[in-house]
């Protein structure tokens, strides 16, 4: 077996910044796997980020998200933009395995050396993207990508993490995606900046477009009313309109630069990072395993209820922190 070449991390980072693809993909692996090097990599790359435009593509499985991303990426290339694509597919809750099959729909993009595609398994994360998808996008951004697509796993109604990870959210539906009542429901239908009804050659496409528009008109007028577009991504029909729609939304965001909104996003990110740290602090200690087993045993024996146990435990932790 050929051993992996051991190149110093700093050198890999520099090579990735200089555009070396294999180094970029190595860095992504280190970040994706939440290795001890990840924090250093992200810290080093942070100042190198250029403000890349991020487009999120979400919607039910099999709706044509990957195909649409493939075609959108090609349009972006016509404008000479460097493109990064991160596509997430689900991880088996039983085995931890995954089939990452988005790339198979991206053959056209895959042939372009200025398009970098990376697949990720969701690895237990339930919000539609993996826990480190945003960080992977940051790495791509630092490596000079101008436009980054993030494609979620096939989602239902409430996997909404994509909303905070990108600038523009495209929700891809199909003509069979239900009636106006579905469009009224909270969740997925609220986060779209653009609706796309793909596979629009099938019956019902203009009906569902109409119904989404009707539902949107029931609410008070929005600053950015999301357009509803019909596409046949496989044939490339309507894709240009989606791309232009994204650019329009980008222009809208730039004109209405919302500092409070950006600050909120940063706050959320920091909060998520802190939660991770606290989780590690609390649970990745031998004492925690002991505690967990001990309290669980008592709860099962009926000596303690879970609520009291949690209170006791958190008091213990607070005491420890004070002592430190």
């Amino acid at each position, binding site marked *: *077996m*050929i*051993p*992996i*070449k051991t190149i110093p991390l700093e050198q890999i980072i520099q090579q990735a910044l200089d555009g070396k*693809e*294999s180094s970029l*993909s*190595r860095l*992504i*692996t280190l970040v994706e*796997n939440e*290795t001890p090097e990840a924090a250093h990599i992200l810290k080093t790359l942070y100042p190198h980020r250029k403000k890349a435009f991020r487009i999120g593509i979400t919607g039910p499985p099999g709706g044509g998200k990957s195909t649409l991303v493939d075609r959108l990426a090609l349009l972006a290339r016509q404008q000479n933009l460097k493109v990064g694509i991160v596509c997430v597919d689900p*991880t*088996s809750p039983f*085995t*931890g*395995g*995954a*089939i*990452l*099959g988005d*790339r*198979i729909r991206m*053959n056209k993009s*895959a*042939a372009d050396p200025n398009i*970098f*595609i*990376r*697949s990720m*398994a969701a690895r237990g994360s339930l919000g539609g993207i993996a826990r480190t998808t945003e960080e992977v996008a940051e790495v791509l951004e630092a490596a000079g990508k101008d436009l980054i697509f993030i494609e979620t796993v096939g989602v239902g109604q409430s996997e909404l993490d994509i909303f905070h990870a990108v600038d523009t959210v495209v929700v891809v539906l199909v003509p069979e995606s239900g009636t106006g009542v579905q469009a009224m429901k909270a969740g997925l239908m609220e986060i779209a900046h653009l609706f796309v009804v793909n596979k629009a050659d099938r019956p019902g496409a203009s009906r569902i477009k109409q119904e989404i528009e009707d539902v949107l008109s029931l609410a008070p007028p929005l600053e950015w009313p999301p357009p509803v577009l019909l596409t046949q991504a496989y044939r490339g029909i309507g894709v240009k309109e989606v791309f232009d729609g994204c650019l329009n939304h980008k222009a809208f965001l730039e004109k209405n630069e919302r500092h409070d909104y950006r600050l909120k996003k940063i706050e959320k990110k920091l909060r998520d990072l802190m939660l991770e740290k606290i989780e590690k602090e609390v649970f990745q200690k031998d004492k925690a395993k002991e505690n967990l087993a001990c309290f669980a045993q008592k709860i099962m024996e009926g000596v303690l209820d879970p609520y009291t146990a949690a209170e006791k435990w958190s008091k213990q932790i607070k005491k420890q922190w004070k002592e430190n």
Partner: protein
Amino acid sequence: MERKLKILISKIGLDGHDRGAKVIARSLRDAGFEVIYLGIHQTPEMVVNAAVQEDVDVIGLSHLSGAHMTLFPKTLELLKQKGREDILVMGGGIIPEEDKAELLKLGIVKLFGPGTLTQDIISYLKQLEKEKSLT
């Protein structure tokens, strides 16, 4: 550190018989691996490009159409060009015995023929995974 192998499964060339590749991809998924399934009608360039971007540990090529003596060495060569000869390439499908020795000599790490149990492939990869975790 424990690490999961990432494996790319694909078919290169003009051969649409993808049942075997799909069986392998599925069984590797069920064994807990992350599998990039690239499908049929790929070129060595496409496979190597994907392998580099995805930073996979292993490429598995299923081949039944007879062009393995051209396409497998080409894949190895491209990996080398990209500086990723550490990515292991294994193969399966219809490969005559006399070709097998030659391909193994060129650097294909393992060839699985007809009748191979998926469990054998999984065991082989689990062993690799263990070795990689140690390095």
